[in-house]
């Protein structure tokens, strides 16, 4: 057992209101520079939809993630030599148009326009070329199902649905959508890292954050196609790859990442989990159907004395072990089994987990309107408006049993809470649902509390980094006395 710590995240999708505050917080902090305007390290997309960049989930197009052939696991973009032969032109690289051409507006014109008959307007200008731009797409062009005939209908996750199921999903009275906020998954088996020819990408041992060394990166661009989530980006100005850094400078000073901190719906949870690094490769090779179970199996119980001892042997401090023990992520993912990884079939072992949405409320319809009089207010798992097959494509590598178990439990907690608060649900029914979902009253209470009324410290169990101690091992602090910092001493300008 090789115990390592990983900062891991849970996004509770039922609580996401799609306000994009997280995206803006991230953008203001990290990507409002020339060359990064088009990047959204954090973005929120509507599902069903094609997302950002368009069709990112279609690995036939971008060749992201890993491919399992027999017992060998190789990056989809190519084996080592095969990959290098594509170095002069990467055939699987998304282009700027697959994201969108960033723009601003000609605001000055509002002030400088000569006196005339009409109100002056601020025309859109490309942030790349500075020319007038005819805006045809943007990062959230399909927000709330807009343009669904172009976007939502082409969602690759709909492939396994029957034509009838698909049609019913897009019938106006039954249209349904939910949001998925996405950041870098800080995977255990990152494909962006595996395909980096320069070896510039690395995973931090202490907390598992995946970073790109800006000095070592040579702009070969394979990480962009290699990441199946399209969460590494190419800075067209500096010629370097950039990605979500999980706000490590904030984490190291005890603050939650910007997107977490600003989340209006408070859907985000962050904490340490302990996992067994020895089993990473074996886990990434498990067949699709068992993949999610195997990935969750990597996560170790921080309360187990043997795990704690092994963690100590690996140099994980007691304060980190304590943080792992109060981690909300461990509760959601392992203890309660409510959170699942997004697209586990990409085999990168993502460390960002999602509580799948129950909303829109699973309800039965009668004569075109909701039947609120019926005893089964929350309806049944099987009659979910978003087909389970679709949810399974997203969250459980196609295994509908896994997603059914999670939704059943979420329903049971809801029914339990409603029975307690409103009292209009029969006790037997509550008991039956709780038993079916394998949920105790005590657990339901805990889930309800952490879901609906968590405090800041309940959502974010940030371990103490002690950077003041670790930095002494790599830097002589006194040598830098009077300097501005330990970072680049030169402006980060594009090479000649």
């Amino acid at each position, binding site marked *: 057992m090789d115990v390592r710590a990983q900062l891991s995240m849970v996004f509770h999708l039922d609580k996401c209101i799609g306000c994009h505050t997280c995206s803006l917080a991230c953008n203001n902090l990290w990507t409002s520079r020339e060359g990064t305007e088009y990047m959204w390290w954090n973005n929120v997309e509507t599902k069903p939809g094609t997302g950002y960049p368009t069709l990112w989930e279609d690995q036939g197009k971008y060749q992201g993630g890993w491919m399992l052939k027999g017992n060998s696991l190789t990056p989809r973009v190519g084996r080592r030599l095969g990959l290098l032969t594509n170095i002069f032109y990467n055939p699987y690289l998304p282009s700027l148009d697959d994201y969108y051409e960033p723009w601003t507006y000609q605001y000055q014109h509002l002030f400088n326009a000569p006196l005339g008959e009409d109100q002056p307007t601020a025309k859109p200008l490309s942030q790349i070329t500075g020319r007038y731009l005819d805006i045809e797409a943007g990062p959230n062009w399909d927000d709330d199902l807009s343009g669904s005939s172009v976007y939502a209908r082409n969602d690759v996750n709909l492939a396994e649905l029957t034509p009838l199921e698909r049609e019913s999903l897009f019938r106006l009275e039954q249209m349904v959508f939910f949001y998925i906020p996405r950041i870098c998954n800080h995977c255990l088996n990152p494909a962006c890292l595996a395909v980096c020819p320069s070896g510039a990408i690395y995973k931090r041992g*202490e907390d598992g954050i995946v970073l790109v060394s800006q000095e070592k990166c040579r702009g070969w*661009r394979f990480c962009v196609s290699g990441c199946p989530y399209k969460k590494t980006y190419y800075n067209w100005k500096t010629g370097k790859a950039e990605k979500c850094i999980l706000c490590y400078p904030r984490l190291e000073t005890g603050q939650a990442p910007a997107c977490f901190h600003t989340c209006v719906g408070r859907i985000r949870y962050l904490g340490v989990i302990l996992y067994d690094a020895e089993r990473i490769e074996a886990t990434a090779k498990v067949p699709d159907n068992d993949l999610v179970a195997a990935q969750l199996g990597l996560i170790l119980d921080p309360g187990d004395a043997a795990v704690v001892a092994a963690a100590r042997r690996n140099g994980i401090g007691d304060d980190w072990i304590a943080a792992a023990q109060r981690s909300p992520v461990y509760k959601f993912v392992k203890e309660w089994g409510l959170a699942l990884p997004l697209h586990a079939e990409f085999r990168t072992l993502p460390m960002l987990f999602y509580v799948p949405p129950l909303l829109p409320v699973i309800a039965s319809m009668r004569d075109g309107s909701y039947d609120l009089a019926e005893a089964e207010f929350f309806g049944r798992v099987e009659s979910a408006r978003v087909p389970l097959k679709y949810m399974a494509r997203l969250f459980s590598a196609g295994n509908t049993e896994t997603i059914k178990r999670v939704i059943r439990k979420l329903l049971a907690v809801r029914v339990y809470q409603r029975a307690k608060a409103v009292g209009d649900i029969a006790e037997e029914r509550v008991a039956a649902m709780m038993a079916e979902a394998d949920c105790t009253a005590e657990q339901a209470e805990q889930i309800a509390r952490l879901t609906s009324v968590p405090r800041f410290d309940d959502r974010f169990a940030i371990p103490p980094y002690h950077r003041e101690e670790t930095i002494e091992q790599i830097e002589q602090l006194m040598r830098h006395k009077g300097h501005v910092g330990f970072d680049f001493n030169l402006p980060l300008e594009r090479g000649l």
Partner: protein
Amino acid sequence: MVDLFLFGIFPYVAVVIAVGGSIWRYVRNQFTYSSLSSQFLEGRQLFWGSVPWHYGIIAVLVGHLIGVFFPAGVKAFNSVPVRLYILEGTALAMGLLLLVGLVILVVRRSTNPRVRMVTTPMDMVLLALLLITVVAGIGVAIFYRWGSAWFVTTATPYIWSLVKLSPDLKYVASLPVLAKIHAVAALVLIAVFPFTRLVHIVSIPFAYLWRPYQIVMWHRRQVQ
């Protein structure tokens, strides 16, 4: 006198600038080392330009190096006319291939508005230098036939005389002007190497062929 400067002194100046400059740039600011790819902004023209250019130039450069390092082998190979024709034909085809690629790249860089935004003056200087070198080289191949045969009796001994620090100008004195232009342009390319995007050549990621797929870095040394 001009020959003495261009072929007796300038080669050393060029190499010193190239090596010293590259090391200085690498040590001072590695951040500026990048392929500076613009595929992200424009991909279709780049494919038709970059792929023929790169594979063509690699083949031609390797050909030149074989001539320098194995002159006897090249002579022996060329002793049979058919083999000489095949070698010359292949080399010329590669030269034309890379010329086509280069022209497409020049056109793309000067006309595509997005690509122009990431074009520095140095990029245009570099493209001009490359174009001169390549056109002169192909001109030599066409007008002064069987270059692979006379290269090994002129350029090869000259280059070795440079290596031995006693430049022997008699080998280059009688070369046609076109060949001299080719050689001098190539030397200028060597001299400007550290100040252009050419530095991406020294970061060809061979190590990727054997490095482990995953890289984990620790702040602290791990406790054994």
